[in-house]
């Protein structure tokens, strides 16, 4: 016999109760849910319930079977209404009979909590002011999970004594739980978003470049907001030094690829997303093709080369970009709208600065929440662009100083173009040059392989860095800042330049090339070398 029903019409309580009247039952406990006249302070006129009936019926039946297995009860039944209900109408009914009252009370509570949490039922509230709102009824808190396990529990519970504990409980319930249905009601309630805006987000494709301090909040908020497709680009692995600011990761993730840990985490937040990962940084050869698959780019790396590549590829593909970068306690936010006359990154700073002068978090230090603030601002800007929300739509640069708690908004000159022949020509030329310089980057796991291949090593790191982490092979030491003035001192030969990450060494290699030296850069720097296995 079916114990759970969905009812499109009003139900008669005595009919519902009758099957529970059994001779072994010493009592009966019921719960009735009624339509009340307010919701969150707003006067309500009535409700319309809609359900995915087939799933609701099978899941409702399963909940009652679970209650029968967990509690020492005689029988149980429940019914949930659909259709139009007035104030005071019965929306849901649960009845449980049992030999002893305690089990009936507990089972009744279990059933209503699970129904509220798991059944695919939505209600449209009709407000007295005349408007309406759809509210998903799922995912409300399960109060029975916070019950303290009780020493007086009866024998039957001993075999399943874990059912009071949320963690252990998850195992049997999880296996049968209905598919997750996201609830965007809190943001949909915003007048400028609503169901239309939500559908726009579901259809949007956003590429987040860099899953570090800025990328973590960007990914969290865009996943939570329901952006349908999220691409994540990052070539790094999670390091313990990331955890003070990169909030997607835990100590368990250290040593894992950031793209994998980040994808797992945001998929856990919103399993309905389509998440795509790129475990290598983009390069001049593929950036335009990758950008073509997205509507919006969010640039979150700590790498000047990536920023310029992003700007160039965005200019050529017409994609908007939300840039941010940070320095210690400050940040810069730059919105590039992707329109033909929008000023690109090269309009601001025409040539890529020497990486040694711009500071990374590793070199300059950073307070953990600073990228959090700037990343959250990037998420807001991204949603503004995707949803066409009201507010400034102009290209702008915002300087944020979190020590002073001040922001300075600098309007970019309208129609600014690069100094040369306009942004597109500058971007095309830069991408061509970047393709050429990518051929300067060589990959080695061990420095002795480079020596064996005939390269002479030049360590371009600062003396303190060299002292902290000396190279495992003989090298000449020449900090990157001194490369230009020493260029004429290089004897003919092939040189492999090495720094911490491969950025300064590439820049230095280009400098040497300009003086006719056959210089290459170790791709990824010391960080990309195979780590020596430590004894013990």
């Amino acid at each position, binding site marked *: 016999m079916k114990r759970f029903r969905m009812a499109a019409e009003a139900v008669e309580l005595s009919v519902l109760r009758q099957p529970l009247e059994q001779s072994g039952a010493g009592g009966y406990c019921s719960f009735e849910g009624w339509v009340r006249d307010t919701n969150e302070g707003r006067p309500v006129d009535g409700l319309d319930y809609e359900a995915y009936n087939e799933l609701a019926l099978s899941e409702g039946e399963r909940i009652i079977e679970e209650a029968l297995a967990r509690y020492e009860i005689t029988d149980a039944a429940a019914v949930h209404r659909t259709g139009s209900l007035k104030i005071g109408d019965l929306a849901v009914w649960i009845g449980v009979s049992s030999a002893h009252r305690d089990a009936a009370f507990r089972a009744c509570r279990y059933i209503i909590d699970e129904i509220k949490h798991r059944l695919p039922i939505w209600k449209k509230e009709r407000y007295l002011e005349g408007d309406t709102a759809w509210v998903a009824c799922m995912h409300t808190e399960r109060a029975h999970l916070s019950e303290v396990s009780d020493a007086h529990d009866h024998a039957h519970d001993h075999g399943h004594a874990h059912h009071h504990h949320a963690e252990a409980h998850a195992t049997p319930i999880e296996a049968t739980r209905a598919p997750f249905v996201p609830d965007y009601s809190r943001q949909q309630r915003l007048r400028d978003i609503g169901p239309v805006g939500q559908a726009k987000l579901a259809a949007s494709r956003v590429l987040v470049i*860099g899953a*570090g*301090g*800025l*990328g973590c909040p960007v990914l969290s908020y865009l996943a939570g907001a329901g952006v349908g497709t999220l691409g994540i680009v990052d070539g790094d692995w999670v390091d313990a030094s990331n955890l003070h600011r990169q909030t997607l990761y835990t100590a368990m993730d250290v040593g894992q690829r950031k793209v994998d840990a980040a994808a797992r985490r945001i998929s856990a937040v919103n399993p309905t997303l389509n998440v795509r990962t790129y475990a290598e940084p983009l390069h001049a050869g593929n950036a335009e093709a990758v950008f073509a698959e997205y509507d919006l780019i969010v640039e*979150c*790396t*700590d*790498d*000047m080369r990536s*920023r310029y590549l992003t700007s160039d590829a965005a200019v050529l593909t017409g994609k908007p970009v939300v840039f*941010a*970068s*940070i*320095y*210690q306690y*400050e*940040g*810069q936010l730059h919105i590039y709208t992707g329109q033909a006359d929008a000023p690109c990154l090269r309009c*601001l*700073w025409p040539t890529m*600065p*020497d*990486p040694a*002068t*711009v*500071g*990374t*978090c590793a070199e*300059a230090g*950073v307070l953990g929440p600073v*990228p959090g603030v700037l990343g959250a601002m990037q998420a807001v800007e991204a949603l503004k662009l995707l949803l066409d929300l009201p507010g400034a739509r102009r290209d702008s*640069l915002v*300087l944020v*100083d979190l*020590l*002073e708690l001040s922001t*300075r*908004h*600098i*309007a*970019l*000159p309208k129609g*600014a173009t690069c100094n040369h022949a306009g942004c597109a020509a500058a971007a095309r030329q830069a991408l061509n040059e970047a393709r050429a310089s990518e051929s300067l980057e060589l990959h080695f796991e061990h420095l002795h392989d480079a020596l064996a291949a005939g390269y002479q090593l030049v360590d371009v790191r600062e003396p303190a860095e060299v002292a902290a982490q000396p190279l495992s092979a003989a090298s000449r030491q020449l900090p990157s800042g001194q490369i230009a003035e020493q260029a004429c001192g290089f004897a003919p030969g092939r040189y492999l330049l090495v720094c911490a990450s491969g950025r300064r060494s590439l820049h230095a290699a280009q400098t040497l090339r300009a003086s006719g030296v056959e210089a290459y850069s170790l791709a990824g720097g010391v960080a990309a070398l195979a780590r020596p296995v430590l004894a013990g």
Partner: protein
Amino acid sequence: MTQVTLEYYAQLREQAGRSREAVQTQSASLHDLYAELRARHGFTLDAQALKVAVNSQFSEWNRPLVDGDVVVFIPPVAGG
């Protein structure tokens, strides 16, 4: 003498040891002003690595200074 207010960000703030200052200057242009400040604070960045804004608008380096200008030299930063 021209009275201007300066705001410093990132490496410039660090090297100047302050976020803002008011200065009396005989420099006629932004270019001269930066050279003067660079000598005083030991700024490591060349002017060509910076963007300059006056009164919240980006500006050309040869712009003459006017009493009351708020000048911001903006270095590119890369942290993320």
